[in-house]
């Protein structure tokens, strides 16, 4: 398609007539995302203090859930300790197998893509601001065309939400000398909130929206599909907010469980 019969001058990095503080947004995204990556990596490599149980509670850090290979007490799903196939020269932590799922979900998420292309790759730095590179491929060819796998990543991410809901449920049960009974601690609320926020993020995914009804041109004769589509749409409208709130909350949840199991804080019990 050759529709352009003109040449426009090239503008340099950062060139703009914008007066507002356009750099605040990409800088914030850069700081919060980097902070999260650093914290999550650190927490995942610890391999301990991810399960708080000293006072009868059952709080499992979301970074370590589902606990496939548990080294630390109770609810592991496959085996205790390190899997046999794990190369011995690599450090093992039960979190590492798990973070790949949610990590890929966020990495390929439509919202995060737009955000980190700006904050980490300056493409563009901000709207109507000059860029550092002349060449551009976008998501039109390799490597970024691979972002299209996002639709497959959605399904495991949805399964993780279910597992986290189960963890939230487990967090409502406390064990003492007389046995196990129902209760609510601050940790229970933190864990349940975590599952709900991640659910709001995951089920507002653009791919979910497409698969549930977006691919059809007519939903009028499909009442159940229409309802589901409307629900996903409602979440999708605020996808950005869900993305940030759930990101921060999941890190805080891990921190809470970590500090609790290290004995730095005590869990306040609301119903016990």
């Amino acid at each position, binding site marked *: *398609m*050759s*529709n*352009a019969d*003109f*040449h*426009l*001058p*090239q*503008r340099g990095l950062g060139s*703009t*007539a*914008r*007066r*507002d503080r356009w750099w605040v947004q990409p800088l914030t995204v850069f700081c919060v995302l980097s902070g999260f990556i650093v914290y999550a990596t650190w927490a995942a490599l610890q391999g301990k203090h991810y399960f708080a149980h000293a006072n009868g509670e059952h709080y499992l850090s979301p970074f370590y859930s589902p606990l496939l290979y548990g080294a630390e007490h109770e609810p592991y799903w496959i085996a205790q300790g390190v899997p046999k196939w794990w190369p011995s020269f690599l450090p093992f932590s039960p979190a590492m197998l798990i973070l790949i799922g949610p990590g890929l979900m966020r990495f390929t998420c*439509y*919202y995060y*893509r*737009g955000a980190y*292309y*700006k904050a980490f790759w300056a*493409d*563009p730095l901000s*709207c*109507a601001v*000059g*860029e550092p590179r*002349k060449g*551009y*491929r*976008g*998501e*039109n*060819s390799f490597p*970024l*065309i691979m972002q*299209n796998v996002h*639709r*497959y990543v959605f399904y495991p991410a949805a399964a993780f939400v279910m597992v986290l809901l189960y963890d939230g449920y487990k967090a409502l049960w406390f064990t003492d000398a007389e046995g196990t009974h129902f209760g609510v601690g601050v940790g229970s609320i933190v864990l349940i909130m975590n599952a709900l926020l991640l659910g709001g993020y995951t089920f507002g995914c*653009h*791919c979910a*929206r*497409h698969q549930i009804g*977006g*691919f*059809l*041109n*007519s*939903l*009028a*004769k499909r009442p159940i599909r*229409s309802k589901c589509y409307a629900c996903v749409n409602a979440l*999708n*409208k605020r*996808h950005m907010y869900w993305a940030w709130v759930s990101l921060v909350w999941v890190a805080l949840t891990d921190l809470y469980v970590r500090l609790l199991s290290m004995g730095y804080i005590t869990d306040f019990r609301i119903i016990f």
Partner: protein
Amino acid sequence: MGEQRQATFSVWRGDHQTGKFVDYKTTVSEGMVVLDAIHQIQAESASDLACRWNCKAGKCGSCSAEINGKPRLMCMTRLDILDMTQPVTVEPMRSFPSIRDLVTDVSWNFRVKKRIKPFKPRKPDAEDGTWRMYQADVERVQEFRKCIECFLCQDVCHVLREHHKHDEFAGPRHFVYQAALEMHPLDVEERLGQVKGENAIGYCNITKCCTKVCPEHIAITDNAIIPLKERVNDEFYDPITKLFRIFRARPKAERKD
């Protein structure tokens, strides 16, 4: 009339190859928009200043410009949202060649649009050549029909603005247009090949700048571009969905129903 005061406007004079900002002082008062100020400058001190406008109501899409670096309609930008203690810069859209001063040549957009496959409805539903469709189903595309073709989204999109892909990329406005056709309950045209190939939707990296500047508040990225990307994905990149669709083996017109 409220309080009156002096303000300075730094207005681009020239074309897209040569030109410079020229400062004009004029008196402004409450309730004025940038287009009023430009008209006043024309009347008072620069009768040869070129600008395009028509409705002064944000509905014709003629008065697009960049005000303090942001793509906006001049007629819908009230002075009270701007910092009037500094000169206000007014320049033409930068993704298209300026013919003179604030007037840009946007005909590229019309050439691109002409190549987009036109609406192709299925066979009429009734004997008298009419169709039946559900209100709920056309509602989704109503949003796209609000477009006033101001081309502010095209102006801000970095694929055009910074990377000058005018020869390969159709730009957000035309994805809105194609989404309106592609998602229309009556349309049976096969469009995704064009959306992916000739119009290269893959260049969009979903930065949402277009959505932010749209004066009609069309959720361009979320409601037009991403759903189109997903449909392109179904058709060209996703073998599993493709397989399912083969088993279902329903023609497009029916599938969309």
